[in-house]
């Protein structure tokens, strides 16, 4: 009996030790969002601590798995005093979280879905951040003979014809949407085919599966370069127009979703497109992978971006 009391007591101690973390900063109740006023494009001074320091960033697994966020977020946090909570999910879920006001800013890569999302009034603005490209990966011996295909859809068609195993993200992510768009262009619906498998997971996990199954898969180049050394997958198709992978950042609109931290979301978007950050993005990965993982694009028009 005494033993049990002692145990409960010890656990209660741990509980009280945990308590301070349970009190996150509350936003000032009067902090009504003022989107127009907060549109100061210059970064806030480091000393000024924001009224609501918590910024929820809904983003894609590729930005996390490539390690880019680990580099950018600490810089933003120390420069502005904001605290970013990056939630790395598929683009579909990231957009859904933003549309519910459960995130303050989204960083995703599915232009068509983004435009719908903006048209629905979910965001204040849509800023081009960077791009890289998608690459079609496959076993080195290329059983479906994809190498040399004239276009992305032609490459996909060869896979379908050979019924070679293909692992899809299957998670409504930006990569998944891109893959579906290419299948559509190839005028082929692979769903339900035995050789077509949906992983339902992030890019990193999907690469692991494709690697084990000696299958083809579509990956963003950044994640592939970051993971290349552990994989026996080669690039079998790259450089096609349909394989461009463009990232936009969009602060969530406080007009439609009053509970969001509009100032914080805007500050993070401004940070991503600022010249200093763009330079960091343009160099990220060069030391480890021999080439940068992303091309910075802030300020360009979408049709100016080219792989």
């Amino acid at each position, binding site marked *: 009996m005494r033993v049990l009391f002692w145990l*409960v007591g010890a656990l209660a101690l741990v509980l009280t030790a*945990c308590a301070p973390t349970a009190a996150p900063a*509350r936003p000032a109740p009067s902090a009504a969002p003022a989107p127009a006023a907060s549109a100061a494009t210059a970064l806030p001074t480091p000393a000024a601590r924001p009224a609501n320091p918590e910024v929820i960033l809904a983003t894609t697994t590729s930005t996390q*798995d490539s390690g880019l966020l680990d580099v950018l977020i600490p810089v933003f946090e120390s420069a502005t005093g904001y605290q970013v909570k990056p*939630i790395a999910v598929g683009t579909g879920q990231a957009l859904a979280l933003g549309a*519910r006001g459960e995130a303050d800013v989204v960083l995703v890569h599915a232009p068509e879905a983004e435009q719908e999302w903006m048209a629905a009034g979910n965001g204040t603005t849509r800023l081009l951040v960077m791009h890289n490209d998608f690459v079609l990966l496959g076993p080195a011996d290329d059983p479906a003979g994809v190498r040399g295909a004239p276009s992305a859809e032609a490459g996909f068609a060869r896979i379908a014809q050979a019924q070679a195993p293909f692992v899809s993200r299957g998670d409504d992510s930006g990569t998944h949407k891109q893959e579906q768009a290419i299948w559509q262009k190839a005028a082929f619906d692979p769903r339900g085919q035995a050789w077509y498998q949906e992983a339902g997971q992030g890019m990193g996990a999907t690469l692991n599966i494709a690697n084990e199954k000696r299958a083809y898969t579509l990956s963003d180049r950044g994640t592939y370069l970051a993971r290349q050394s552990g994989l026996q997958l080669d690039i079998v198709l790259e450089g096609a127009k349909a394989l461009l992978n463009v990232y936009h950042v969009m602060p969530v609109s406080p007009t439609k979703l009053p509970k969001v931290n509009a100032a914080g979301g805007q500050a993070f978007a401004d940070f991503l497109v600022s010249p200093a950050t763009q330079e960091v993005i343009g160099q990220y990965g060069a030391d480890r992978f021999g080439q940068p993982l992303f091309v910075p694009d802030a300020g360009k028009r979408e049709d100016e971006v080219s792989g």
Partner: protein
Amino acid sequence: MDVVWSAVVQAVRLIASGDPEVLRVTALSLQVSLTATGLSLLVGVPLGTWLALARFPGRRLLLGLVNTGMGMPPVVAGLVITVLLWRSGPLGELRLLYTPTAIVVAQFVLAAPIVTGLTVAAMQQLNPRLRLQILALGATRWQLLALLVREARLPLLAAIMAGFGAVISEVGASMMVGGNIPGQTRVLTTATVLETSKGNFDLALALGLLLLVLIYAVNLTLTWVQQRERPL
């Protein structure tokens, strides 16, 4: 196999070097799961004792619910709590989503039915005549409960171990309500998932080994307490 060996080497190195990030993740795992287990004890032991001893209409339905809760899928608990804690959800004003507290809440929901259910079983396997005898000797209600808990302490400690083991090792709820945010809500299981998807299999395995060592250490302590004095 070389990945396993390199994981063992890396795990030893991780523990020995005292890498601050790994220490933080480990400490948070321990803190969150011990807190959740502690809370589930505070609720589960009294509730289980009551369910074991009391007789009232609907008791079996309630017991059935508790036993179902013992098999609660972490990802379902995580999803429901996430929706409740959303800004637009009923508890959004608490601002708890993506905090360690949210993980504690989710793990409590997972551990409480386990502790409750196993407490019921522990209490019911006591000889029913023991209760009559204690009462006949003039014990008060509280003395009776204290004596019964004392009698059932071995299976009760097993209940603690089961509850703790379930929550320290779950990943679905922690990932969903915590968000796996570095420095804030990253625990050993979610860090393992992340390193796996990054392709750092040896680091992922090393974190897994660290988790196993941690579970062993906690259970060894509990086992030591359990086996120290054998019942008559």
